[in-house]
């Protein structure tokens, strides 16, 4: 089996390890990896730092993880905060918490519960967002997207009222896709086949092909039907 040929990396406590090609990687505590790392599986708990790029088939991160380079992952589960300074590529990605990416995101299926800041653009096959914090990205291209918001606590409602900048909303410049179902989203353009603009949305322009539904509390500038 190929598994046994590569060494495993185990970090407990406060340690620095070098990058390289590993079998299983398990980090508990405060671990730093110097350089690029390739692993069959990557399991991090606690504070993890990778000073390089990370490539793995199976990723499970709890706690805080910072990656200076790019990430390419297969199936991934992140609980906590993940910061990526490069770009992110993944198959199935689940985040409970916060995701921050400086570059672009290309993911087949992304489920997000929490908030995110993606400075590049997002290209996601199926995107499910449950907003529990702010979502910001330059633009979204997808096959299907669904955005929902958790019920706000009275405190959150008060903060939003005092500081509208911190409202729990999704902000982006454009959303393009086939099936679009939004709530609490502010964007300039939405382009898609079936478009549902739910409560709390502010959209300047909607271009749709087959269907457009607008919630009474949503504000849209213009809805245009295009194509045959």
């Amino acid at each position, binding site marked *: 089996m190929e598994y046994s040929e590569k060494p495993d990396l185990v970090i407990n406590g406060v340690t620095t390890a070098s990058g390289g090609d590993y079998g299983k990687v398990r980090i508990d505590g405060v671990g730093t990896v110097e350089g690029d790392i390739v692993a069959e599986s990557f399991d991090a708990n606690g504070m993890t730092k990778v000073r390089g790029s990370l490539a793995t088939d199976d990723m499970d991160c709890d706690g805080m993880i910072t990656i200076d380079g790019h990430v390419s992952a297969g199936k991934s589960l992140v609980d906590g905060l993940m910061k990526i300074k490069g770009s992110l590529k993944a198959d199935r990605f689940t985040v409970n918490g916060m995701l921050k990416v400086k570059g672009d995101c*290309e993911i*087949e299926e992304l489920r997000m519960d929490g908030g995110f800041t993606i400075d590049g653009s997002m*290209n996601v*096959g199926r995107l499910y967002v449950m907003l529990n914090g702010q979502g910001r990205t330059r633009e979204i*291209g*997808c*096959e*299907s997207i669904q955005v929902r918001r958790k019920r706000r606590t009275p405190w959150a409602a008060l903060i939003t009222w005092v500081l509208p900048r911190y409202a729990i909303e999704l902000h982006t*410049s*454009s959303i*393009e*896709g*086939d*099936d679009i179902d939004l709530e609490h989203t502010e964007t*300039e*353009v939405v*382009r*898609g*086949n079936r478009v549902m603009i739910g409560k709390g949305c502010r959209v300047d322009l909607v*271009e749709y092909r087959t269907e457009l539904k607008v919630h009474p509390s949503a504000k849209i500038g213009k809805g245009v039907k*295009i*194509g045959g």
Partner: protein
Amino acid sequence: MERELISKKELLDEKGISYGQLYRWKRKQLIPEEWFIRKSTFTGQETFFPKDLILARIDKIMNMKDDLSLDELADKLSPLLPAYEMRKSDLEKRNIVSSIVLQRFASEDASEIVYTFDILLYFYVVDKLLQAGEMSMEEGEHLLQTLREHFPKFETKPCDLVFIRKMGVSSFALLSVPVEMYFENGVKVVARLSMTECIEQLKGKLV
């Protein structure tokens, strides 16, 4: 030399595809990143594509996607030089490169010799320009030399071949794309070929 562009919306209308498909193909690397050209228009940011390239590519994807999975398709379309090799005699038989080119540039090679894909590509490009009547035999020799010497340096990066002539003196250049080029007066751009396109055409012929 300005390339004709097509906006994303026009492209989707013309080909009858959806945003989802386009993004999917981009994720699968069926459509290269550098074809997505962002420009600001009066309606805000819009994405444009080089018209000839993207239309040909989408036709190809639509034709082949029923028979092949997207991943197989990506292999077929990727600009990486594939591991195709071919014997000289087969090359002649299948008429991929005309016999004149082979006689002229490969007469000393035995007919059993096996050419790697990059050599095939060089012959193909030379043949293409010769057939178009844009280049003479001597220039062909120079081109072959240029390609042998410099094309491998691009590795997998996309590049264009530019063939210019001024006052009867010709020269070749290989450049990585996307790039804008302007020449002094009197320079005639005889041909500009995308090597990536050539690779694909040749791949199509070999398979």
